[in-house]
């Protein structure tokens, strides 16, 4: 699925956060969004999944998505794993996963996908009847991503999947995202503080600052850019 975003303006009430964002993500690509705190990265993902009011253009394979409500976008195959994971804590792991497939009517393939999610995240299989709130942070993030996969997403939006996780768990998670992307050819937009990891799996990247994209390029180029490394990525090359 090719995602095309043009002149995207979004915000909360009167407060504008995004001031004309423009980006393109090719079919089956992983795109990393980097930038400092408060830049509007989360707001960008919220705009893409219909959670905030937007102006401008968002097209997924030609279908116009801007201005449509979140449930309609879910039906179009947009799966959002929000910052803080959006897990339904009192519900069981299985109920959470099944909720991910809420908009789908094809029961048989939902069972198949449940199985598929278990192969990506074997730990979830052993926790199916457990309340999601009793999972560890890493397991909850896996559940959140697994739940998003249950939608059979065409566009997967990940907001800081590494937040609060141990480095080892984070690496494992990114490896799985990469595997999902390779096997299902799901287009992925990932917002990440850990720029090193995100650039490791992404084909291209954009740096967002105060609601504008200030730098775009292939992941390799962004990684090699010394100035970016210093001012946005927080490490020296």
């Amino acid at each position: 699925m090719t995602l095309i975003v043009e002149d995207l303006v979004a915000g909360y009430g009167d407060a504008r956060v995004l001031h004309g964002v423009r980006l393109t993500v090719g079919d089956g690509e992983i795109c990393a969004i980097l930038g400092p705190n408060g830049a509007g990265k989360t707001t960008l993902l919220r705009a893409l999944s219909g959670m905030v009011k937007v102006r401008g253009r968002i097209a997924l394979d030609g279908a116009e998505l801007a201005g449509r409500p979140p449930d309609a976008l879910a039906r179009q195959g947009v799966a959002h794993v929000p910052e803080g994971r959006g897990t339904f804590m009192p519900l069981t792991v299985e109920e959470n996963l099944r909720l991910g497939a809420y908009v789908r009517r094809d029961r048989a393939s939902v069972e198949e996908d449940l199985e598929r999610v278990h192969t990506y995240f074997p730990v979830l299989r052993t926790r199916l009847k457990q309340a999601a709130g009793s999972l560890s942070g890493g397991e909850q993030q896996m559940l959140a991503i697994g739940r998003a996969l249950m939608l059979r997403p065409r566009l997967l939006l990940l907001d800081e999947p590494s937040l609060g996780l141990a480095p080892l768990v984070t690496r494992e998670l990114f490896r799985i995202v990469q595997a999902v992307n390779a096997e299902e050819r799901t287009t992925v937009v990932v917002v990440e503080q850990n720029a090193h990891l995100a650039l490791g799996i992404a084909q291209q990247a954009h740096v967002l600052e105060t609601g504008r994209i200030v730098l775009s390029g292939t992941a390799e180029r962004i990684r090699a850019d010394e100035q970016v490394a210093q001012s946005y990525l927080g490490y020296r090359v």
Partner: protein
Amino acid sequence: MSSAITSVKTSVKTLAATVPAARWRWLAVAALLAAACYAPFQLAPFHVFQLTMVLVYAVALLGLDLLVGHAGQISLGHGAFFAVGAYATAIMLDRLALPYPLTLPLAAGTAFVLGLAFGVPAVRLRGLYLALVTLAVAIFLGPLLKRFEAVTGGSMGLTLAKPQPPAWSGLAEDQWLYLLTLVVAVAAFLVAGSLLRSRAGRALHAVRDDEVAAEVMGVRLSSYKTLAFAWSAMFAGVAGCLYTWVIGFVSPDSFTVNLSITLLAGLVVGGLGSMSGPVLGALFVMFVPGIAQDINDAAPGVIFGLLIIAVMYVAPTGLAGLAGRLVKKVPRKE
């Protein structure tokens, strides 16, 4: 003596260890049902009547729990939908002379449609605002019933003949009414249970736990909030219908704001979001006001209030939560 107790304890332990937890629940439900079927043949008619009313309240609380416990909405007007079911039944029996089995689905349908109509505007409200609007509905209902005297019988209400036991059954009236109510109540719990286990039930829980996340998952918030109102009203309507069958009389004074508030208090005391909560809450609603009266004839309301506070202090998650905690304390073999 003490050795007998120890041996009983060990046999309970082995029993507890051999039977899985889920099966214990079913055993408990089966035992309760057996007792419920046996009760009307052992108790005095007045006590049979009291148990019948417990079942009626349990169905009403089941409906309220769909809205409050499972959908996370609040209603101080549940008594109004209960009244709608009761009056719809009374009017169908009295003015239209319909056979009483027919009044049950029709009363349920009427309440469902009204719940739906009410749920549409209620979707825009939440928390205290929703509480206030539903309270207004409960307040409004009394004068409305009095106003349309030609249909509702005004403040005098309507008196009706109760459903009579068929001659072949050999049952007394109170036993027949009890068994009718039991059958309907069991069916209501089965329907609610399968509703909650379905895709729709999951969506309802998702909306309760995190509206935004539910919406992103594709759940249409407005339709579920509206449906929760309609379902909740439907069960209230069923309970209202049973009420009219059992009491044989409706009047505006039977469905005051007090009823709505007592129902909400009963549900919270019984426990939110479980199947046992409505039953325990119904027992509370039925028997505790009487107990309060026994304790202090002059101010039963004060005692009732104090008892609610006392229960909530001991069992902040309701009686169902307390029962759950006690069951977990039953010794299990490792």
